[in-house]
């Protein structure tokens, strides 16, 4: 018998024969977009922009062999329309698909080639832009333009493990989905066309942690070029995961890096569980044809007086309740394949996708949801099903939809006897994944005939060589020598996404605020705030610059820094100066402090003259009694020392 619940800690990914390949998509920081002259900065919706709007439909296209993208077809049949918002500041006719694309942005190509060289990949000799059909409306054209610029290569992880690189491509980012409203999906076009680099690794990754390390190491390499964007949504990971006996599953849209190990582990577990379900079905003697041969039965009469709100609602709007028996599937639909996600949920995903229904009920979870035991018993008898042996799935909806949904359920259930189906899945916030669509075939790539191929010339390559990022070890050495960071701190800061900001601030304020302290804002203060649950994503670069500036000017004592940052995280529209005021951190200007210290020294001038610098503690004590929490102690100490030295100097 198969356990219903699973304990993720019991699974050893290595033992499962885990293999993971990563696809990392990173926005490049170029002056303009990949195929037009628009800037690559996104708009801030709250600021009020001139925005043009238009509405489009996207029709599924057929390949020569008549194949049509099934997910796209379903959306089109439902009358799905796309409502586009085109800010004039950051879009033009190209994004609106009202003008052919311009030539590929050379700057993006050069950055891409630089990354390729850093990854020891071999650039192709001529770059061809392709159209990858994507009909969810996120591209106004219905395809994403993408081009392979290099093949092969490798990256070494800090552990010494080497992960192979398969391809490096340059492609256009998609539009931002802003909302769904009935049959309209709304997209903001500012992001459409921003250049991305896509790095695909070989399936050399063997543990969830290695997947994380690989993403981190590649991310670091990209940032060291100083030509990539950062911030939410500027880097995204897709995954290909398989285990021994399983199948390569695509997982899309992993935005949070820290979730990556969990998603990998959960997918390995899902495949393992599907294999266990298969073995259990075989053990029970269930055959594929037994499943596929099941008849879909109208059981509306069973639910005539039901208390289930969902079923009553479906029946009121002219729907029916259809049911199908899954022979030998008892207790399997209720079995988890991922924490909180049962095999029945997998079937429900198929019912939704193929039938367009809201969901399904199955007997492993019944009676429940207003469905009574009596109704369940009737179901068993109408379908000739055996309790504890068979499972029954029911769907309440328009008859045609319900029938399609149950047909899909039967086919998915029959596939359980084969093992793991080939799917594209979407990552969820809790680390689990849901079925998104069947994996598209390779026939969805066509040449972009509007853009001429580009020869990768020696001239392009020599420009790329100038941008090849330094190796992490070299960079660490530079940071230690130039800014006096400890090796440990340097190692931490080069893994930080805001490395470039650190360097900028260290350069500008290094003589007033120690670079080690600036680095620790990123590596220590922000991280511990994040651990405490402060939403540090809200803190902009300019906030941090304001903060360091305030410290440099003596307006902000260091012990108040965490409070200021927490305040900013909660009120991202405010500035550091607002935080200082709101938090009651009194602004004491330097002159006032100097004057106060002069007065303190004057009041005990004999003692100071006698003891010299040994009197410093006493002067400090008196000064800090008045200034604590308002001025950094070190600033006060500096002034005290200087003033005492002046006094002693007078004496000499």
């Amino acid at each position, binding site marked *: 018998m198969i356990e219903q619940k699973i304990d993720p800690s019991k699974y050893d990914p290595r033992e499962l024969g885990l293999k993971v390949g990563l696809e990392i998509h990173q926005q490049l920081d170029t002056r303009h977009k990949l195929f037009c002259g628009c800037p690559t900065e996104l708009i801030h919706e709250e600021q009020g922009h001139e925005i043009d709007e238009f509405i489009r439909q996207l029709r599924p296209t057929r390949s020569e062999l008549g194949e049509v993208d099934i997910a796209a077809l379903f959306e089109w049949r439902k009358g799905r329309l796309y409502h586009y918002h085109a800010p004039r500041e950051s879009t033009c006719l190209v994004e609106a698909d009202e003008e052919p694309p311009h030539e590929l942005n050379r700057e993006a190509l050069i950055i891409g080639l630089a990354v390729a060289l850093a990854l020891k990949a071999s650039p192709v000799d001529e770059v*061809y832009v392709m159209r990858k059909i994507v009909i969810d409306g996120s591209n106004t054209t219905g395809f994403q333009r993408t081009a392979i610029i290099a093949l092969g290569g490798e990256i070494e992880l800090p552990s010494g493990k080497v992960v192979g690189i398969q391809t490096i491509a340059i492609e256009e980012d998609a539009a931002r989905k802003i909302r769904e409203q009935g049959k309209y999906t709304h997209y903001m076009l500012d992001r459409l066309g921003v250049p991305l680099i896509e790095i695909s690794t070989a399936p050399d990754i063997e543990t969830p942690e290695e997947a994380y390390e690989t993403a981190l190491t590649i991310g670091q390499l990209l940032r060291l070029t100083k030509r990539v964007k950062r911030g939410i949504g500027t880097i995204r990971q897709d995954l290909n995961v398989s285990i021994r006996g399983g199948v390569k599953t695509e997982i899309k849209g992993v935005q949070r890096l820290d979730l990556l190990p969990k998603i990998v582990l959960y997918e390995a577990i899902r495949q393992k569980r599907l294999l266990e379900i298969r073995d259990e079905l075989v053990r029970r003697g269930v055959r594929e044809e037994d499943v596929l041969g099941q008849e879909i039965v109208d059981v509306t009469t069973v639910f005539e007086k039901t208390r289930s709100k969902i079923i009553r609602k479906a029946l009121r709007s002219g729907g029916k309740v259809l049911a199908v028996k899954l022979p030998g599937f008892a207790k399997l639909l209720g079995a988890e394949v991922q924490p909180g996600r049962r095999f029945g949920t997998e079937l429900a995903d198929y019912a939704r996708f193929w039938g367009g229904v809201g969901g399904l009920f199955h007997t492993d979870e019944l009676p429940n949801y207003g469905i009574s035991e009596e109704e369940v018993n009737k179901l068993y008898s109408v379908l000739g099903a055996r309790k504890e042996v068979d499972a029954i799935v029911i769907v309440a909806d328009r008859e045609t939809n319900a029938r399609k949904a149950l047909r899909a359920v039967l086919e998915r259930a029959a596939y359980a006897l084969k093992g793991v189906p080939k799917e594209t899945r979407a990552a969820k916030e809790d680390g689990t994944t849901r079925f998104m669509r069947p994996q598209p075939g390779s026939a969805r*790539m066509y040449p972009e005939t509007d853009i001429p*191929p580009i020869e990768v010339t020696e001239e392009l390559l020599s420009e790329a060589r100038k941008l090849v990022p330094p190796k992490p070890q070299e960079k660490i050495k530079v940071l230690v020598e130039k800014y006096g960071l400890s090796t440990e701190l340097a190692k931490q800061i080069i893994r930080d996404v805001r490395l470039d900001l650190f360097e900028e601030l260290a350069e500008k304020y290094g003589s007033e605020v120690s670079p080690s302290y600036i680095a620790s804002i990123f590596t220590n203060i922000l991280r511990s705030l994040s651990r405490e649950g402060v939403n540090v994503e809200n803190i902009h670069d300019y906030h941090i610059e304001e903060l360091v500036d305030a410290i440099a000017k003596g307006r902000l004592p260091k012990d108040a820094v965490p409070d200021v940052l927490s305040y900013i995280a909660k009120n991202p529209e405010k500035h550091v100066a607002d935080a200082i005021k709101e938090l009651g951190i009194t602004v004491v200007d330097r002159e006032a402090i100097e004057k106060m210290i002069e007065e303190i020294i004057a009041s005990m001038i004999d003692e100071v003259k006698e003891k010299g610098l040994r009197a410093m503690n006493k002067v400090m004590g008196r000064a800090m009694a008045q200034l604590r929490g308002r001025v950094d102690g070190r600033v006060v100490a500096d002034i005290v020392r200087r003033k005492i030295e002046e006094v002693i100097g007078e004496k000499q």
Partner: protein
Amino acid sequence: MGLSLEGYTGIARSLLEKAGAKVGDYIRIRRSDGREFKGVLMPRYSISSRPIIVVKLDNGYNVGVRVDESTVVEVIKTKEALLEEARQGAPAVIPLLEEAPSGERKPRVVILGTGGTIASRIEYETGAVKPAFSARDILDAVPEVGFIADIEADVIMNILSENMRPDLWEKIVDAVAKRISEGADGVVIAHGTDTMAYTAAALSFALRGLPVPVALVGAQRSSDRPSSDAAFNLISAVLVAAKAPFAEVTVVMHGTISDTYALAHRGTKVRKMHTSRRDAFQSINSRPLAKIYPFEKRIELLRQALRRRGEQELEVSNGFEKKVALIKYYPGMDPEIIDFLVDRGYRGIVIEGTGLGHVGEQLIDSLQRAYENEVVVVMTSQTLFGRINMNVYITGRKLLSVGVVPGEDMLPETAFVKLSWILAHTDSFEEARRLVRENLAGEIEYRHTIDLYPRWPH
């Protein structure tokens, strides 16, 4: 070999020939630097003669591989073997729509193809777009039209829009007339957009009596792409052909850049006003006949038609004079250009003049000579918007005195087509000059209301 190694020259070509490879074959390229590439051989569209072979890798991407004498190319699988495999693995073809149109009799609409791709398929191995134009192909690609009309389709020519010529207008006129006389309830002409407005004008003049609507339609985005406007425009055009209450020659294209409604423009007042936008076609000095909502299958009339459906019998006066020129005046234009046309036996010249209808004084003598040689000269304006008035300034009056005919508010292109048509139907110089000023097919609007001029952003 010929077409099978499309675009390849030099070393690349001889390597491929030696390997016996053709476009579509799965090949392996081994280079002396040790790198190896496997993929489907693609045609080379680039004009450059660099020694590069283009292959489609297994992941679907194309890349260019530089080759030299020491490179080894071999064929792993032929195109035929690949296609056979693909065919076996391909799932059953799924129709776009689940429902089929009812069997009841619907209006008969004939779709005539002249070139371009209102429906097309992408070639599996090379990505080339192949036109598809049987009624079956159209119904597969745009099944919605089958719910509006009983569709027949015919390809009458297959040319690029820019290669359209007056003798081909005649061929289109004949094809349309034949289909109408055979009982079609409306005709749709699929046409490249570049010269569609000229053809629309030609049909407007040649179909003197018209009992049913004729709708020209095209696409600004090719039909192989999901965002193509081809289907939207075609459905709209079929709606016009099948249901419109007017019997006029129209151009039916996107009304805005949204997929909301199309506009049916009068064939003599329409002009392509943008190189690439979906809503490139606009009525100039005029208002469109109707808004067409293809999703709702609704036609909203915007103005009175010249004639209603079924009001007239079919009457055709086909023929266009080839010796007619359309020239644009520019500062300093050399009068020899006019002299050349007169000497070469041209019978008509349409000038796109400046402003109200002027050209530089240096042309006056040559225009006088044209008049003496019975060459009809018609004045239109580069401003496109507004009406010719040659009485206001001295140059205009001089031009009138040398016999230049003011073209009212006609589009230069329409005046050109009109003059070609007139001169093919009369030998009388004076009759031709009179007909130019007569409103024959709605090409002249005598009232321009204030709103007829668009507002540009500022």
